[in-house]
């Protein structure tokens, strides 16, 4: 009883603090060209805290996970879906990495890879059938994509926060950014669909462990690792694992022990390929804004279910433009982190692009009143303003 009261109290305080923070930013930041960016940074930090809530609220030192470190493996929510256990937790289309401790939800890419083959298996840990799990994960992906679109990418994804912090560092050092050519962006954009398709197929094949009686992977442990082939190369995983290790929530020795090969080519928590890619993306996103987002296969999945075909009409959140008010000044194109050009090129109406991470920087910086706006379920909740009006000098 006391525990419930304590929980409610803590939740209320947390919610209160977050609301206070939001209001403080909305009031205190008078410069209209920075207000929304400040709010977004705050929400991103809150989102990271919420995703890794287990690191904050415990219980700590859970016996069965002691070899991992001091934090619980996870306090995932959504473990029970209508009475049927769904042990990996709520699937979210963002990098809420499965392998990190203390998380409340799970990266949907991990789940798709894990459940895709053999989907008919049930085991002691998974009491729902594989097909049900796959359906739930996929269903949640589609629903969240339709409701939020790539809002996850701009406001919630911790890896996005990582890249934005790198950008802020670069800005403080007054170093200029690099822009990729339209051709390069196009190539990255199209390759992400190939990447996710390839990895999902690979996951299915490797999950089989054998094709027509020929054993694919002799070692069971290696097989377990390779069932999630994308996680072997994903740059987000090592970021979280190394960060948690540094903070003491994860035992890095244990993490490194769970690897195979001379250079830790494959592994559960970390692989050398993971780290190399993280290094490349870090260096790249220092100079190129939101570099990973342009090739992110998870982003591609969301885009697939919110920006194309019938999904486009059903999608709830979009950017719209009033044709007459646009003077084609090009500010929106210049300030866009993933270098989206549709907002500029398209004449009017729905101008959301598949690359757009819905960070709303373009709406913030557009100097023509009501030209660009963010529409949620048909209602315009944020419009471009004459930001010259409110600047305090």
């Amino acid at each position: 009883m006391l525990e419930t009261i304590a929980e409610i109290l803590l939740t209320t305080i947390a919610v209160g603090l977050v609301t206070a923070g939001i209001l403080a930013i909305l009031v205190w930041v008078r410069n209209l060209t920075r207000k929304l960016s400040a709010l977004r940074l705050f929400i991103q930090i809150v989102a990271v805290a919420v995703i890794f809530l287990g690191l904050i609220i415990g219980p700590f030192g859970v016996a069965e996970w002691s070899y991992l470190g001091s934090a619980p493996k996870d306090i995932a929510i959504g473990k029970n879906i209508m009475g049927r256990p769904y042990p990996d937790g709520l699937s979210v289309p963002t990098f809420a990495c499965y392998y990190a401790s203390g998380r409340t939800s799970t990266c949907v890419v991990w789940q798709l890879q894990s459940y895709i083959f053999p989907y008919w298996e049930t085991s002691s840990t998974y009491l729902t059938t594989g097909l049900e799990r796959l359906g739930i994960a996929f269903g949640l992906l589609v629903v969240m994509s339709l409701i939020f679109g790539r809002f996850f990418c701009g406001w919630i994804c911790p890896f996005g926060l990582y890249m934005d912090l790198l950008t802020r560092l670069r800005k403080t050092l007054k170093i200029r950014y690099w822009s990729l050519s339209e051709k390069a962006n196009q190539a990255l954009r199209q390759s992400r669909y190939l990447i996710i398709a390839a990895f999902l197929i690979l996951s299915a094949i490797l999950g089989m462990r054998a094709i027509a009686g020929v054993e694919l992977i002799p070692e069971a442990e290696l097989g377990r690792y390779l069932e999630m082939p994308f996680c072997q190369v994903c740059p987000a995983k090592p970021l979280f694992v190394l960060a948690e290790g540094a903070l003491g929530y994860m035992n890095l020795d244990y993490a490194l022990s769970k690897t195979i090969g001379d250079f830790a080519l494959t592994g559960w928590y970390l692989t050398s390929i993971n780290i190399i890619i993280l290094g490349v993306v870090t260096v790249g996103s220092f100079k190129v804004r939101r570099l990973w987002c342009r090739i992110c296969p998870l982003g591609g999945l969301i885009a697939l279910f919110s920006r194309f075909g019938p999904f486009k009409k059903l999608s709830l959140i979009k950017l719209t433009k009033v044709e007459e008010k646009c003077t084609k000044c090009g500010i929106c194109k210049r300030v866009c982190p993933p270098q989206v050009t549709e907002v500029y090129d398209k004449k009017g109406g729905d101008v959301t692009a598949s690359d757009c991470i819905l960070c709303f920087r373009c709406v913030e910086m557009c100097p023509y009143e009501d030209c660009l706006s963010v529409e949620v379920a048909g209602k315009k909740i944020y419009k471009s303003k004459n930001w010259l009006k409110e600047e305090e000098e």
Partner: protein
Amino acid sequence: MASEIEKGSRYIPEMSKSEIEELGNSIKTSSIKVMEQNIEKMKKTWPNRPEAMEYFDEISNFFGRREKEIREQKEAGKKLIGYSCMFAPIEFILAADAIPVRVGSGWYDAAKLGDRIMPVEVCPVIRSTVGAKMVSLSPYLELSDAIISPLTCDGRTKLSEILSDFKPIWYMTPPRVKDDPQSLSLWKEEMQVIKGKIEELTGNKITKDNLRSSIEKMQQATKAFRRLQDLRKGPPVITGRDAMLVNQTSLWDNIERWTQKTNELCDELEKRVEQKDYACPPDTSRVMVTGTPMLWPDSWKVPNLIEESNPKGLLVVDEQCSGDRILYDPVGVDEWTMSDMFDAVSERYLMASTCPCFTSEQGNEDRVNWIMNRIKEYKVDGVIYYVVRGCILYAMEYARIKRILDQMGIPVYYLDTEYTREDVGQMKTRIEAFLEMLEARIDI
């Protein structure tokens, strides 16, 4: 060889000193008279004209206070950089601690002089500038240390040549197609060159800090400008001609002082909105002018007719580079690094322009959108499409604009005139008929 034969200036023939002095003085006197008359007319039409306008009346006199100030600043070592078209990067000029000033000619009498050299088919603004140069009429042109000349139309291309005999001319070649990927990179290169030239002339480097402060100064000016323009959306607290005067003085005035004075004027006008103190009856027909620039002082011919005829009209907004387009678009800077500021300044001058010298796959849609948007926001009743004879670009876009305005149900009249006072009678009959038409439609 040309260089053997050509001695002295290449276009303008030698004139005797006495002739130059005589003509110069007579045009100057008549110009001062026209300026005074226009101000008188504005005062007469608006008896309750705010005192804040007196500052602008003073600055509007080319030969008065502002000329004196510039001379003093030049003696103190500052450079004066003129520009003939609205593509010159004012922020760079300010950052290098030089004085930017627009050198466009609005003198009808000077056009007659220019007729000696240029045939009458040439744009009158060009002929007038040539004429003004012949008698060294314009103080700003004469005092310039260099002139930035964006070659946006044929007339300006050749004008630069003519003027280059007397002043260093810095050419800028804006691409005619805005949307091509190579256009922006070409334009940025042009901007780099100009930046270098400004730094060389003034001896001051354009740094992150001074560029930032000049961008912010211009943003403040845009803020004040938009504040004034927004006031014109509502009931008539300011006549069109007075607003145009305020707009145009920003082209040669000290920009910080102009910003301050415009804000003072807006404070007064906002009070008047509450007190319902209007410059003319609120049901006066609201007219928009679009087309070639109307430069002070002589080009007040048509606005005078619009606002003084019977029935009266009110100029609420315009789509001209001598009015609403001067300071409407701000420079939008994302990261205050040198490269981003440079990109932002370059893009603002190229992309935001709705001049018909541009085209693209959809044509000059920017201008169409601008006009449609203004008509809705300012509740415009009718449009006067003003073209000075010789401007092919504006003349040709009329066919498109007319069809769009017909679709919108907005009457538009093609008013084609020249740098002359002799057709005032004809202009009057047409403008009066047009305003009559607008008035009658209000009854419908």
